[in-house]
């Protein structure tokens, strides 16, 4: 199991954001993406997850191996914690939600509707969902938003267990989780629209495409 990215270019809203991104993540390794707001971390992660096509370059990863957790947790407010997790477990063809509950200490909240959870509890549920996917490549976009210190540690432990089990993890985060990980700063890969990567200039997010 390995994820390798060759000379990848990404667009957001039709505008080039990143170009020339290359890296390889092997089984058991984690990659942390860094860079200022708007540099294209989310765009890169969505491209890797297959939610948008790459503008150029290629991503090599075994088929159906990626699980994605974005900014939104994908929870149904009217459903209980159990029902939310059970749905995703069924969607991924795994039935056991117990490890996911244990990973984030969610057992006590099992029958509470997601609408009544705090922001941090929702995030915990959203992250615990990754465990029920049973997929080897985990992609997180700002996973620690609204998590307290204790739960950030639980998250780090969950990822560490996943890596120890031969999984891969990619995440955009500004927090040091204490996991041994490669760090990739995306700033040098910024695409100013002139066809190649140029450091420091231009920002697709300021050009009025939104």
């Amino acid at each position, binding site marked *: 199991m390995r994820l390798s990215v060759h000379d990848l270019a990404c667009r957001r809203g039709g505008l080039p954001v990143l170009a020339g991104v290359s890296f390889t993540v092997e089984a058991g390794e984690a990659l942390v993406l860094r860079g200022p707001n708007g540099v294209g971390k989310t765009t890169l992660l*969505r491209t890797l*997850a*297959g*939610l*948008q*096509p790459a503008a150029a370059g290629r991503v090599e990863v075994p088929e*159906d191996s*990626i*699980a*994605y*957790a*974005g*900014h*939104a*947790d*994908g*929870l*149904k*407010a*009217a*459903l209980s914690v159990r*029902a939310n997790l*059970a*749905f*995703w477990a*069924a*969607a*991924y*063809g795994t039935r056991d939600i117990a490890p996911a509950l244990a990973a984030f200490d969610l057992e006590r909240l099992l029958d509470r509707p997601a609408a009544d959870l705090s922001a941090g509890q929702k995030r915990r549920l959203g992250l615990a*969902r990754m465990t029920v*996917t049973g997929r080897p490549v985990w992609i997180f976009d700002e996973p620690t938003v609204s998590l307290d210190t204790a739960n950030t540690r639980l998250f780090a432990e969950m990822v560490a267990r996943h890596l120890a089990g031969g999984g891969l993890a990619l995440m955009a985060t500004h927090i040091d989780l204490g996991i041994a990980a490669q760090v990739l700063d995306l700033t040098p890969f910024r695409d100013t629209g002139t066809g190649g990567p140029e450091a420091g200039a231009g920002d697709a997010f300021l050009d009025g495409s939104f």
Partner: protein
Amino acid sequence: MGALLTRDLALAVKAGGGFGLSLAFFLIVVTLVPFGVGPETGRLAEIAPGILWVGALLACLLSLDRLFQLDWEDGSLDLLAVSPLPMEGVVATKALAHWITTGLPLTLAAPVLGLLLNLPGPGYLWLLVSLALGTPALSMIGAFGAALTVGLKRGGLLLSLLVLPLYVPTLIFGAEVVRRAIDGQAFATPLAMLAGLTLATLALLPFAAAAAIRINLR
């Protein structure tokens, strides 16, 4: 797929899910008509098939904008797109859930509302049959419209403008079946056209809708 269907049905019947809203709307539209055109039974009976079909069509439209919008807003649509479920299957399943919570109740309620409009005797059975055959197409076409407008703020109105013209063939053949049945004419042709339209819709539109969603998620 089964899990998605169960989830959508559970969400529809829970508080705020909107189940029953379309049915109540249908009831109100149909009861308003006699107030508008006058209570003469002859005239009402004449327009009853059309009114019932138009009412069912508008009621169907009512809950369409929620079909993908809610999943898009809370991020589930992204997660569904990454999940092993094919997007075509997701679209078809959601359209099926929409039909079970909207089209099916409308179909079952229509004969009762036919009484209010003094629908002639032979019309009841074929009203039921034509709606049962036609409403799946309404849900599927609606799902396509909802897929096109997902992610747009206030996309509901645009959705209606997109979807209503596409409902026209179903409406024509659906109402025609009932009208001809009442008049004692042969109605096999409109019935076959109606069934054919529904089958074509069910066969083709999941792919179109899935493509539209993939583009809208970018």
